[in-house]
């Protein structure tokens, strides 16, 4: 896909507690198409220690309103600065980057399993499923209810199943333990997942054991985001592959898990 280097303007901002922000970006011209699983590289140029760009998933692309939505969790200086963006700020982005989740077949039962801020790429895939006439089953896990702040967005699109480690919302435990997955083993045709590495590995294992097609979106550290530095590799059955161009989405059967 053709890449663009664009200055986008913050047009919407929603903060929950002090850790999560949802930012809407727009442009005078029509934003390029982007697909679920793809990401953008954000230039954070007003922080002293963010030398490199920061990769952030496409949370949603509202074609009608011409708004790109990013959902950001504050973990360090770069994401802190993004949290502090105000409506009107202009931010340089390289986009769209990476491959995408593969398209489901009509009639499939699809589980979208997200952990923590890994829920980000799930929403947009869910929206596409819904457009196809497939009900997205979102299985969302986090440490605590306060880490699942955009849950209403998901409820508007599909069925939502929640686990939290402290039982503050939904079932207590890890996503993989959710009754929807454990009881539905035999019905589920496809799982897409994103989240912390141990979580995705657990999901991958579950899928393999139950013969379910499973795609995971990896979040390896990146220097460039577009395939030129070879820093973001993951071992696969065919050797090292770049997460930024061969991924971020991989079929778990190809991964060296």
């Amino acid at each position, binding site marked *: 896909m*053709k*890449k*663009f*280097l664009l200055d986008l303007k913050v047009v919407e901002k929603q903060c929950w507690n002090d850790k999560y922000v949802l930012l809407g970006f727009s442009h005078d011209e029509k934003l390029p198409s982007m697909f679920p699983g793809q990401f953008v590289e954000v*230039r954070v140029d007003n922080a002293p*220690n*963010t*030398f*490199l*760009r920061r990769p952030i998933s496409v949370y949603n692309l509202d074609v009608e309103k011409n708004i790109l939505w990013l959902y950001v969790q504050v973990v360090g200086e770069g994401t802190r600065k993004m949290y502090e963006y105000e409506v009107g700020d202009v931010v340089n982005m*390289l986009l769209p980057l990476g491959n995408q989740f593969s398209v489901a077949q009509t009639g499939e039962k699809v589980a979208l399993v997200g952990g923590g801020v890994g829920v980000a790429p799930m929403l947009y895939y869910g929206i596409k499923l819904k457009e196809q006439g497939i009900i997205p089953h979102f299985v969302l896990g986090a440490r605590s209810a306060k880490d699942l702040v955009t849950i209403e967005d998901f409820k508007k699109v599909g069925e939502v199943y929640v686990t939290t480690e402290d039982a503050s919302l939904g079932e207590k435990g890890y996503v993989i333990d959710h009754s929807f997955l454990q009881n539905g083993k035999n019905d589920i045709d496809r799982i897409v997942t994103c989240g912390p590495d141990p979580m995705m590995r657990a999901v991958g294992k579950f899928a393999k054991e139950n013969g379910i097609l499973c795609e995971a979106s990896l979040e*390896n*550290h*990146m*220097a*460039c*985001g*577009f*395939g*030129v*530095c*070879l*820093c*973001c*590799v*993951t*071992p696969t059955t065919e*050797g*090292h592959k770049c997460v930024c161009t061969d991924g971020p989405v991989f079929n778990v059967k190809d991964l060296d898990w």
Partner: protein
Amino acid sequence: MNLKVNIGGLELKNPVMTASGTFGYGEEFADLMDLNRLGGFLVKGTTLKHREGNSYPRMAETPSGMLNAVGLQNKGVDYFIKEIYPRLQQYDTNVIVNANGSTVEEYVALCEALNDLEHIPAIELNISCPNVKAGGMSFGVDPKMAAKVTKAVREVYHKPLMVKLSPNVTDIAEIAKTVEGEGADSVSLINTLLGMAVDAEKRQPVLSTITGGLSGAAVKPVALRMVWQVAKAVKIPVVGMGGIMNAQDAIEFILAGATAVQVGTGNFIDPTLTIKVLEGIEDYCQRHGFDDVNDIVGLI
């Protein structure tokens, strides 16, 4: 305004090139800029045989810089010639291959193969990669080894030969003079500074290889110093790099003695940086009343 420069027999339409390992095979940038505007571009480090490179993690961000430990991942020269070289012929600029080896024999075999490629007008002999166990940097930090590999390659490679120097040495000018003596047509510097990052919370190194190569804005003062030292010591042209993040940085290198520059890590942060650097150099010459970029080379 003349921007043409000559790097030991290699004609560049302007002094702006890219640094190997930071520009892929060029194609990745084609959506965003016109590659043909460059003086040349250096493709990924290439070896005789396929290399998987080092394990992940290979990267750590540092203050105004980054460490990498890619370890020359590439599919080997045969794959390059078969799959990539044909596509690169379309570009109307100098496509230069960065040549790497673990032994003198490997370097020689590789450079022999590259010598036959009509559309590769020059090579950069990398004797300074800090990210491979055998060979690599060890050639670049020992004048005897540097001499040996340059001499051997010179015998089989008949086009302009640029040798890339390691900054991890006590006296870089000495190494430069050594490779000049063995027939190098130009030298390029600096490769990355050997560094390390520690994850305090996990109490372990960040990189799988413990140490890695430092690049980016942070290294610019060291790179400028070395370019200045080398340019005074040798008669062949010097290609400068290390932390170029804008046109002014590039001009500093030229003033310090570089006839051309390479943009490296800066390509990650702004994929169109080379074009900005090129335009900035032209603008600078104009503003300061120079009608030939060669006139500002080594003014300091």
